[in-house]
């Protein structure tokens, strides 16, 4: 079997497993419980263990695929590679938080409603929490990034080139969220075109975020900056936005207008890294 065929086979196995491990429990839970009860109940929720497990489906799929296809478990991207790459760790943390800051400013400018006014002490607390919660939640987002960035993206890039890998990878990542999007996780349920527009928007957002995460992974040679950036995007940026705007109506963007403000700002920032990816590719070709 040629390398490309082998790579394609491994990719298909990985995608089937990543989707199955996540989608089957999510569909069962959606059918039996209200989404807010089982997914959104936070750290006190009785289904938190399931949320953690299914959130790590890409990593589990990557490990299983390596075992099934006898690829071996060694992965150079599991090394921290701090030497010479500290700047990428810092960028991974600061760029999403800066996005959160801008998002908060957009909310404060009155384009969306906020329902709380926080004291300066609480705002300071939220800013501090934005930083260290991003590092703590990176333990959780590692479960996605080890699958998408450390396994899927390199396989796709060797099969179809970098631009197609970014777009196709982003779409697959966005569609992977579909069982959650259709019950209101990303954008709520009260918008025109629900739920299909939500899935399309999520895919577009994942394409842009994927550019940033792919750039971090390729530049650092490690999966950890992407895990930190993912956590900073999911959690840290919300804390920052809340600190600036005085509060959000809900976490995790369950209100469409707030979610739209959020993803528009952050997608625009992350898309800049897509430009850097293209420039890097051209530089490598010339050299």
């Amino acid at each position: 079997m040629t390398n490309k065929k082998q790579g394609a086979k491994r990719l298909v196995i990985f995608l089937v497993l990543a989707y199955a491990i996540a989608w089957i429990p999510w569909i069962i839970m959606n059918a039996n419980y209200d989404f807010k009860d089982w997914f959104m109940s936070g750290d006190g929720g009785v289904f938190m263990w399931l949320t953690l497990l299914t959130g790590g489906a890409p990593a589990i799929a990557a490990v299983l695929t390596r075992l099934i296809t006898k690829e071996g478990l060694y992965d150079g991207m599991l090394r921290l590679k701090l030497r010479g790459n500290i700047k990428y760790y810092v960028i991974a943390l600061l760029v999403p938080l800066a996005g959160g800051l801008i998002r908060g400013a957009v909310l404060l400018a009155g384009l969306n409603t906020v329902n709380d006014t926080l004291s300066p002490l609480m705002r300071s607390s939220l800013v501090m929490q934005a930083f260290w919660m991003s590092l703590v939640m990176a333990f959780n987002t590692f479960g996605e990034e080890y699958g998408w960035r450390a396994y899927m993206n390199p396989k796709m890039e060797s099969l179809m080139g970098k631009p197609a890998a970014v777009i196709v990878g982003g779409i697959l990542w966005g569609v992977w969220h579909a069982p959650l999007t259709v019950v209101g996780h990303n954008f709520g349920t009260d918008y025109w075109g629900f739920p299909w527009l939500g899935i399309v928007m999520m895919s577009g957002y994942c394409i842009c975020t994927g550019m940033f995460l792919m750039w971090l992974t390729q530049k650092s040679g490690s999966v950890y900056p992407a895990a930190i950036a993912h956590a900073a995007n999911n959690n840290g940026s919300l804390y920052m936005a809340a600190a600036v705007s005085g509060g959000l109506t809900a976490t995790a963007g369950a209100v469409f207008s707030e979610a739209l403000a959020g993803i528009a700002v952050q997608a625009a920032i992350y898309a800049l890294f897509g430009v850097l990816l293209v420039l890097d590719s051209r530089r490598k070709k010339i050299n």
Partner: protein
Amino acid sequence: MTGTVYKEIRQNLPVLLIALFAPLAGYALMVLFYLIMRGDRGILTGNDVSYFEMLLPGDNSFLFVWKLLGLLMIYYCAGSITTNLFSADEKKKWSYFMASTPRGVKRQIYGKYVILVMIYGTFLVSQIFTEGFMNWLGWLDTGKVLPSFTNVYILMFFVQLLLRALEIPFLARYGVKVGIVMRLTVLGTAVVAFMIWLLFAPSAFDIIKNISEHLADFIMNFNAERMTDYMTFFISLLPCIAIPAYILSYFISCKGYLKGVTNYDK
């Protein structure tokens, strides 16, 4: 695979596995306590409560208190991991060999700091996952949501980082023996003081029951984010101090490590 981090993983694989399975073992131990406490000869009489009901704060909250005490014990014992990490490599030959490598002793110390974060991180993730699973079982049994200590676990992770940040430069500079003597002295003093108080203080057991109820309230309030703004601010500040302290501790340890090597026996 190569590198000092890989070497530390191989050397400390049993510790990593213990960190992974310790929360589950803790719950299993509490089943034993439950079986002892329940029944005709047990402390708990007259109430036919299930194992999971005893994990709820309230009248039958023995297991809830045991869980808290168990957490404190585990986190105290976590300190001994550090001494074991350094004692494993406390040989002059090894230390001078590492000093002769291109990156010098920095690589040696770097591996220690990274493996400690890996061990505590593994324990944190395992705790949160295991507790979540057990709370799900408890919900199926009792219909109630058992209290989750996730916020406490995260806070204790950073407390551990801060304590290690203070401890490791000392170990690196003076060696493990001095560290062990200091730890035993502190522990022994605390145990003796507690025993004296328990024996001679009036209403000691009532005070312990009172504290356990207030502690349960504090944990519940902490989890439910029913805290004052000042409490939230200082709790949010702790990790922001712990992380830079841990990084700074690494640089201090690198400076003092070779001086500490002269104290090794061989």
